[in-house]
C-alpha cells in the first residue's frame, strides 16, 4: 500500500516531538550517505522512541540507517535504500554505574570519551581504544566491533559486553545477556549483536565489564631491521611470561606518521601493572629485543596519542587485514609490494589496519583481491573499513564468507528482519 509522506512525518513528530524530526533539505543533505539522502533525520531522546520509530518504519516499509557518531558510515556496501536516518547520539545517559562490581550500563549513544571521563574518578577503565575512540559512541563501537591496541590484553567489545538492550526491526524492545560479570543463562545474544552492524536490531543500551586502572604503565618502541624481525619479536613476546597491554606492529610508513625514528618496521609494546613489575618486564622485553638484533627504547608518554592520530586513517582507503601472527611479515610484504601503505595493528592477533593513499577503485580492488587470495588458505580476511563509494562498489568490502556459515547468516537476517528495515544491503553478502 502506498504511504503518504506527510502522515509519516506527523506520526514521527507525534512520537518524538517536532524538533527531533527533520525533513528540511539541509538536514537531509548533511545526513546523506553514499549519495543517498534520507527522507527524515530523527534524533530520539529515549529508547522508547527508538522502539516507536522502528515500529512505524517496519509497518510503513521504510529503510532505517542507525548512526552513532558517524565515524563508520563508509563501512560496508552502500545502503540499498535509506528513508530514515536514526541518529542515536541523543541516547547518551549513563544508566547505572556500579564501581564495586566493575560494571556499567550506558545508553548506546554515549561516547567512549564521556564514559572514560566518568570512570577516571574511580580509577577504572573501559579498555576499548579503536582509532578516534573518544568521540565514537559505544553503540557504534559495538555494532562494528571496532578495536584498538588494548585488545592484546583485554579483547574486544565481544569480550567486554555483558548485556544488550536493543530494538528489533519490528520495534520489539529486547534484552539479552546479564548485568553481572558471569552468566550463561540462555543464548549469548550479546555476542550475536556485537559486529552485526545493526542488522539484527538497533543497540540501545549496553552493560559493560570494566577494569581497574593499573598502578603504572610504560611503553617501549623496538625498531627492527625488517618486518620479519618484528614478527619474530612479537612471537617471542607471546611465548614469554611478559603480560603486555599492547603489542602493535608498525611498518616504516606508520612509524614515520607517529613521528618516530625511521626504520623498516617496529613493535610498540606497553606494559601496565605495579611499578616493580613494569620495570622487570621492560627488562625482559629488552632481552627479547636484543635476541632479534634490536633494542627496546622508551616510546614516550604520548606515544599512544600520536599512534591513535596516525592510525585514524586519512582521506584514502582503510583496510582491516586479518592474518595469523606467524604470517605478519609475509602479509606486510604482500601489502607493501602493491604500493605505498601505512600498516599498523595488533601483532599479537594478526589484526592489521592498512591505510592506502589510493582512492582509485581499480587499484584498491587489485590490492584487496590479491591479499584475499593470499590469506584465504589460513582463513584470513580483508575488510574495507573506509573508502569512497566507488571503491566499495568495485570491490566487495567484506569479502567472501564460507557458504555454510553464510547460509546461516542469511537465515538469521531473514528471521529477524525479513523486510530489511535495518541497514538494507550494507552487511556481508549484501544482507
Amino acid at each position, binding site marked *: 500500500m502506498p504511504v503518504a509522506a506527510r*502522515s*509519516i512525518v*506527523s*506520526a514521527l513528530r*507525534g512520537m518524538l516531538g517536532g524538533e527531533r524530526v527533520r525533513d528540511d533539505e539541509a538536514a537531509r543533505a548533511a545526513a546523506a550517505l553514499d549519495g543517498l539522502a534520507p527522507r527524515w533525520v530523527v534524533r530520539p531522546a529515549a529508547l522508547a522512541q527508538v522502539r*516507536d520509530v522502528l515500529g*512505524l518504519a517496519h509497518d510503513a516499509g521504510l529503510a532505517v540507517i542507525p548512526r552513532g557518531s558517524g565515524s563508520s558510515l563508509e563501512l560496508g556496501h552502500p545502503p540499498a535504500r535509506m528513508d530514515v536516518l536514526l541518529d542515536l547520539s541523543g541516547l547518551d545517559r549513563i544508566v547505572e554505574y*556500579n564501581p*564495586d*562490581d566493575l*560494571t556499567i550500563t550506558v545508553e548506546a549513544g554515549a561516547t567512549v570519551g564521556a564514559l572514560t571521563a566518568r570512570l577516571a574518578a574511580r580509577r577504572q577503565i573501559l579498555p576499548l581504544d579503536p582509532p578516534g575512540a573518544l568521540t565514537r559512541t559505544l553503540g557504534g563501537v559495538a555494532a562494528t*566491533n571496532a578495536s584498538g591496541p588494548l585488545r592484546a590484553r583485554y579483547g574486544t567489545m*565481544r569480550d567486554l559486553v555483558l548485556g544488550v538492550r536493543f530494538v528489533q526491526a*519490528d520495534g*520489539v*524492545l*529486547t*534484552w539479552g545477556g*546479564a548485568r*553481572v*560479570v*558471569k*552468566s*550463561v*543463562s*540462555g*543464548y*549469548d*545474544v550479546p*555476542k*550475536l549483536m*556485537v*559486529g552485526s552492524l545493526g542488522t539484527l536490531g538497533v543497540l540501545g543500551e549496553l552493560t559493560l565489564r570494566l*577494569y581497574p586502572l593499573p598502578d603504572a604503565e610504560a611503553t617501549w618502541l623496538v625498531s627492527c631491521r625488517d618486518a620479519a624481525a618484528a614478527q619474530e619479536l612479537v612471537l617471542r613476546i*607471546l*611465548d614469554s*611470561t611478559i603480560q603486555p597491554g599492547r603489542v602493535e606492529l608498525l611498518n616504516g610508513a606508520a612509524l614515520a606518521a607517529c613521528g618516530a625514528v625511521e626504520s623498516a618496521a617496529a613493535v610498540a609494546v606497553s606494559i601496565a601493572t*605495579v*611499578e*616493580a*613489575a613494569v620495570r622487570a618486564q621492560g627488562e625482559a622485553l629488552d632481552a627479547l629485543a636484543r635476541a632479534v638484533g634490536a633494542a627496546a627504547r622508551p616510546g614516550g608518554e604520548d606515544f599512544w596519542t600520536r599512534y591513535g592520530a596516525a592510525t585514524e586513517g586519512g582521506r584514502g582507503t582503510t583496510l582491516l587485514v*586479518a*592474518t595469523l*601472527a*606467524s604470517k605478519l611479515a609475509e602479509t606486510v610484504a604482500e601489502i607493501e609490494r602493491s604500493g605505498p601503505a601505512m600498516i599498523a595493528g595488533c601483532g599479537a*592477533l*594478526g*589484526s592489521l589496519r592498512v591505510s592506502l593513499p589510493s582512492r582509485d577503485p581499480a587499484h584498491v580492488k587489485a590490492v584487496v583481491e590479491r591479499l584475499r587470495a593470499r590469506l584465504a588458505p589460513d*582463513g584470513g*580476511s580483508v*575488510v574495507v573499513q573506509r573508502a569512497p563509494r566507488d571503491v566499495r562498489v568495485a570491490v566487495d568490502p567484506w569479502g567472501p*564468507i564460507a557458504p*555454510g*556459515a553464510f*547460509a*546461516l*547468516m542469511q537465515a538469521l537476517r531473514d*528471521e*529477524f528482519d525479513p523486510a530489511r528495515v535495518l541497514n538494507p544491503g550494507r*552487511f556481508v553478502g549484501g544482507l
Partner: protein
Amino acid sequence: MLLSPGVVGELQRILGAGGLILSPEGRLVYECDMHTFYKGAPDAVALPERAEQVVEIVRLCRRERLPIVPRGSGTGLIGGVAAPSGGVMVGLNRMTRVLDVDLPNRCATVQPGLINLWLTKAVQDRGWFFAPDPSSQMVSSIGGNVSTNAGGPHCLKYGITTNHVLGLEVVTGTGELVRLGGKVADRPGYDLTGATVGSEGTFGLVTAVTVRLTHAAQAVKTILASFTAIEDASEAVSAIIASGIIPAALEMLDELMIRAINEGTGAGYPKDAAAVLLIELDGPAAEVDAQGERAALFCWERGALEVRVARDDAERALLWKGRKEAAGAVGRLAPAYLLQDAVVPRSKLPAIMRELVLIGARHRVQIANVFHAGDGNLHPLILYDDRNPDELERAKAANEELLRACIAMGGTVTGEHGVGLDKAKNLPLQYADADLNFMFRLRRVFDPDGIMNPGKLLPTHPACGEGFRPERPRLPEGAWI
C-alpha cells in the same frame, strides 16, 4: 518412542559394529548426567568417530523427526544430557584427537570428546595451558565445555569458555556441516561461533573446536585467609578488587562448609573460622609479590584470624585441598544436597549470605556455601535427607527462593553450569517474553525442526506453547495507512 527396524538398520550402517548401543542395560548408563533428578534413557546411543557419521545421523533423525541428545562425558549438572523423550543420543567421547597444535598462533584444534585436562597436558611442557578449568576438568570434554560455556575458579581472570573459543565445526539441526570462525580473528559477518558456545546442543553437534591457548604465568602465589565473620571476608574481597588486583581465583567457603571439611580430611582451617578465603594470584613475579603483600594486608585489616601464604607447590596444593573437596565433604553433614549455581553482583555478597540464612531457616534446611567470590558466583549446597520426601520438597522450595533472591539483587540464574532441563523454567525470572521469543527464533535458525536436544535451555510457554509472543509498540491510529 521406539525406533523402527529400518532406522536401526540405517544407524548400524552409519556407525558400524560397536558404534551403536541398543540394549536396555547399555542405554541405561546414558540416562542422566550428574544431576540425577532428570532421567530418561535414549532409544539408541550412537558413538560416531567421524564428523561425516554425525552428518548422516542428523540427516536421518531429521527425516524421521527423532530427537537428538548430544553427550560428552556426562559430567554436566543441569540434566542437559537426559533424554526424557527418547530419541538418539550422540556420544562424542570417541572423538578425542588433538588435530592441530599451533603455539606461535596460540591455538589448538581438537575433537569434541577430548578431555579438558588432556589438552593442557599436551602443551604444558612447552609452557602453555587451556584456561577454562571447570572442577570436572579431569573428566569433562571440551565439547561439553563448549556446550555449556563452562567456567571454573580461574575464569575470574581468564574468562569462561567462550573467551577461549576461536572456531567451531558444527553439524546443525539440518545436517549441514559448517565451519564457524577459525584461527584468524576478526571474521566478517555475524559471530556465529560466539552464539553457538553455550547453546547446550540445541543448535547442533560440535565436531571440532579451535581454542585459544594461554601462556603459563611466571609466578603463582596462593594465600589462604580465615575470618570470624563472612562479612569481613566479603569486605576483604571488595578491598582486593577495588585496589586494582585481578586475582586468578578468589574462592570463599562458609562456616558450615569449613566444618564439613575440617571433620574430614582436615585441611586444617582454624576451628572458629566462619569464612575462609582462598586467593590465587598469577603473573610476572614482581607483580605477584607486590599484589600478594597487598592482598594479605587487606585481609589482616579486615580482621583475619590468620593468613597463610603457600611457599611451594606442595603447600599450594594443600591450601586448595579443602576447596577441591568441598562438595564431597558435605556428605558428612547430610546424605544428599542440591547444588545451586547463581550469580549476584559481587557487592551484594554479604546481603545474599544473610538472605540465605533466612531462607534456610524458613524451609528448615541447612545451606553450605562454597563460591567464586570474585565474580559473585554462588554455589550453595542445600542439604537434605533423600530418605525423607518432605525434606526434599523443602530443599527444592529453598532452592527456588534462593534463585529469586539472586535475581532480585540483579543477578542471573546460572553463572557457569548452564540451563539444561533444570533451569529452563527459571529463565522467565530473568527474561521477558520478547527476550525469550528472540532466543526461540535464534534456535530455529540453526534447528528449524526442533530435533536438537529438545526441552533443554528454553522453557515452554504455558499458554502459547512455544514462542513467547512479544509486545510490539502501539502506533498512533490512522497516521499513515
